């Protein structure tokens, strides 16, 4: 119904008022001539109102004459009439056309610039870069090279790791991913020992030295400490004294981070042991084998040998046979295939020299896994230990190497790390400045 009504609307129809002695005659006549009439109703005694397709109006005139009726047009309904009326209003049509043109024209400009993803970077800086490329609201879209925009922002704003520029209608969307610049966070770097060792040589570059040559250090021990000091030219040492301990870092005068740096090498010892057998019993399969089928139903078990065999020594393996449906039904039936393999024991013996060689090879392999290739080996010792009872030979290799044991560790800076005065950070074995807490 809706569709037929829509169709009538699209084609246009006319509401007519029919007057006459016998409008029924007119209706019959129209029907027989194929003129479609619908929604006919009585309006008062002598009038009938009906709807008729707009295109059939001309045909109607002769029919009305034949039926001696008269009709008048009440209303014209439908799209064709609206279009016809609209076309009469030239200004309206012109306005609509102008509107479309204006919309199209204006949509070829950029009206908005969005910058997303910035956390620390000021959006104004990005906008400034864009402005330097002549990109601002009101500029034509066509001249914009998005790739160039991306490249320019990436090169001009140092903190940017990635830029994506895209046009969304009249909107230029710039997506930014920021770099996390290392060292920007308030942290201090110490130099700690990566390994246990005896310090052989120490060159301190920056930071507070805590060890000297000849010291024994343990893994994780702090060798050089990083600290904070007031920036040269800043208010000087008075402020922190007034503030005391309660003051936080932020309230103090601007501080400079002094990260620990240095070259410290130490003697480090490594030890590794390798092993080899002098005598060894080996069990080998002879290749002869026999099979047994094991069937178990509940607690009842039966073994069905497949062929006759008798081995003095053997290895046994068992492999369950999948029963498919039976298994899935939960029946307690199990079938397994058991294999018996005849074995023979033989004793292999190695000469001492050969055993030592094998043990040494194992020990060497183990030791060079530990000693870093950059380490300078200064001393190496080898012990051969023979274990008669086990029939084993052990070779122990001890290596002393001089290597760099510095490891930089960054930690959060605290109040304790502020050091005033220009006292010593430079030079070897300097005890450094006095700490103020």
């Amino acid at each position, binding site marked *: 119904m809706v569709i037929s009504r829509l169709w009538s609307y699209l084609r246009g129809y006319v509401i007519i008022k029919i007057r006459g002695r016998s*409008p029924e005659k007119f*209706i019959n006549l129209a*029907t027989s001539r194929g003129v*479609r009439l619908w929604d*006919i*109703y*009585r309006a008062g005694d002598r009038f009938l109102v009906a709807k008729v397709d707009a295109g059939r109006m001309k045909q109607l005139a002769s029919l009305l004459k034949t039926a001696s009726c008269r009709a008048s047009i009440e209303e014209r309904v439908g799209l064709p009439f609206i279009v016809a009326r609209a076309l009469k209003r030239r200004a309206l049509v012109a306005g609509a056309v102008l509107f479309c043109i204006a919309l199209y024209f204006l949509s070829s400009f950029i009206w908005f610039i969005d910058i997303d993803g910035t956390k620390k970077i000021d959006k104004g800086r990005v906008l400034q870069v864009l402005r330097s490329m002549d990109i601002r609201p009101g500029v034509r879209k066509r001249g914009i090279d998005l790739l160039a925009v991306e490249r320019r922002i990436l090169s001009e704003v140092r903190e940017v790791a990635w830029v994506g520029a895209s046009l969304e209608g009249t909107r230029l969307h710039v997506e930014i991913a920021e770099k996390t610049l290392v060292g920007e966070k308030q942290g201090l770097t110490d130099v700690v020992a990566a390994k246990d060792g005896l310090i052989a040589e120490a060159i301190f570059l920056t930071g507070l030295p805590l060890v000297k040559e000849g010291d024994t250090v343990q893994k994780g021990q702090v060798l050089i400490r990083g600290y904070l000091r007031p920036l040269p030219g800043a208010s000087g040492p008075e402020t922190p004294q007034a503030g005391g301990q309660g003051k936080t870092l932020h309230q103090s005068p601007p501080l400079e981070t002094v990260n620990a740096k240095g070259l410290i090498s130490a003697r480090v010892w490594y030890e590794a042991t390798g092993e080899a057998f002098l005598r060894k019993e080996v069990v080998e399969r002879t290749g002869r084998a026999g099979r047994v089928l094991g069937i178990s139903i509940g607690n009842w078990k039966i073994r069905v040998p497949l062929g006759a065999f008798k081995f003095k020594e053997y290895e046994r393996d068992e492999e369950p046979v999948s029963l498919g449906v039976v298994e899935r039904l939960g029946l307690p039936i199990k079938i397994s295939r058991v294999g018996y393999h005849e074995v023979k024991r033989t004793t292999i013996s190695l000469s001492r020299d050969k055993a030592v060689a094998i043990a040494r090879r194992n020990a060497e392999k183990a030791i060079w896994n530990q000693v870093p290739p950059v380490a300078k080996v200064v001393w190496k010792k080898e012990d051969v230990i023979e274990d008669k009872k086990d029939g084993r030979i052990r070779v122990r290799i001890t290596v002393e190497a001089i290597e760099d044991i510095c490891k930089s560790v960054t930690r959060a800076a605290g109040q304790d790390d502020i050091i005033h005065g220009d006292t010593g950070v430079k030079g070897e074995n300097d005890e450094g400045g006095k700490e103020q807490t």
Partner: protein
Amino acid sequence: MGDRAHGSFSDRISDRRIREKLVDVLEMPQELVLDFPRIVLVGNARALIENHKGLIEYTSDKVRVSVSLGELVVSGANLVIARISSDEIAVEGSISSVSFTG
């Protein structure tokens, strides 16, 4: 004249009997073979009359339609002819009765 009328009426009756038998035997749709109108009522809101022979009278409380059996009268209130074509008439409104006369 009365005879003739009587005669033609009996003729029509016998003719109809034969047709009715034919319909029974062959199980054909009656409205096609006997040229009967087919009326579909949807509640009291709509009457669809197929196989009509033309509109006799239309007012808002009565629609008279010519059919093969004579005349079909649909009466009610606010009746509207929603659709009319050579095959069917759709009457809408609040229908109170549908009856045959003639």
